[in-house]
């Protein structure tokens, strides 16, 4: 989907958000800042959503001030017949600021759901009184 407009990609992200809310997309954590969803085909695809921190250094009152600013990256890969992943679309929030907010919303939604699942899991590990 190269060359898609922000508007089209924005609609796509909204649909991903809705599908996540509806429980149609089951995201799994790949690392502390990345969630992954593998969809069986056709087409077989993998969606990855990653929170990335970028460091910005500025000089304020003769002092070096370091700020960590978050942004999000949503990548859509297609599984090739060989099993290799082919990147079909990448939405980089640092380059598409208009979409970054939506990606952040999706990330927070997934994280909150994950936290809820972890909470329920921990409750389940306790003996019943």
């Amino acid at each position, binding site marked *: 989907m190269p060359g898609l407009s922000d508007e089209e990609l924005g609609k796509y992200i909204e649909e991903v958000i809705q599908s996540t809310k509806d429980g149609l997309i089951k995201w*799994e*954590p*790949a*690392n*502390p*800042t*990345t969630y*992954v969803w593998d969809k069986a085909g056709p087409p077989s695809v993998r969606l*990855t959503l*990653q*929170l*990335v*921190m*970028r*460091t910005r*250094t500025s000089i304020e009152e003769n002092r*070096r001030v*370091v700020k*960590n600013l978050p942004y999000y*990256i949503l*990548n859509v*890969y297609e599984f090739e017949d060989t099993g290799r*992943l082919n*990147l079909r679309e990448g939405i980089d929030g640092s380059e598409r600021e208009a979409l970054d907010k939506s990606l952040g919303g999706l990330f927070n939604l997934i994280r909150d759901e994950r936290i809820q699942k972890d909470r329920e899991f921990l409750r389940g590990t306790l003996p019943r009184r």
Partner: protein
Amino acid sequence: MTPDIQQVLDRLSELHPPFWKDLSFWIAQIVALVGVFFAIRAFLSAEKAFHEAKSAKDAATAAGRTVKIQTVTIELTELALKLDRIELELKYNEARDLLSEIQRRIRRLVAPFAKDPQLKEAIGAVLLALEDAQKSLKAVRPTDPKAETPNAVYYGTQDAFDTINNCVADLLGMFEKQTLDLGENDAGA
């Protein structure tokens, strides 16, 4: 004064003439003056030699520092080139090994200059960048090491590695400036 007393005094004067009339006194004086002259000359030469030796020591120290700085500069340039070559397919274990190596080498290189007032800030910045990179790396540690998410490590650590690279470049500039201008300690001055 009676003539008898005068005669006695004259006689005494003949027997014991004043010391300044004695040639040996003047010889002793001349020898002493020559001794003092040579002593002063020796002192001045020694002082001059001391200052020259001190200047030579300072110049040798500055030259040694210059050589050390040049060694550090070469190693830092090598690290900067390594940081330039990070690829999109970077794996977690590769990033971890790279950061460990860079961290160990930078810390070893900058440690002798940590208290240098001109380098202190640049060194502080690079050490801070290394700490941030550790945090970034921790944030992309895969849940399942056998199934790493493509490019995730690169996205998560690229900025941190870039920051280290920028700080290393700043530090290189500072070191290069020091080899060009050593102020009072300049061996070539």
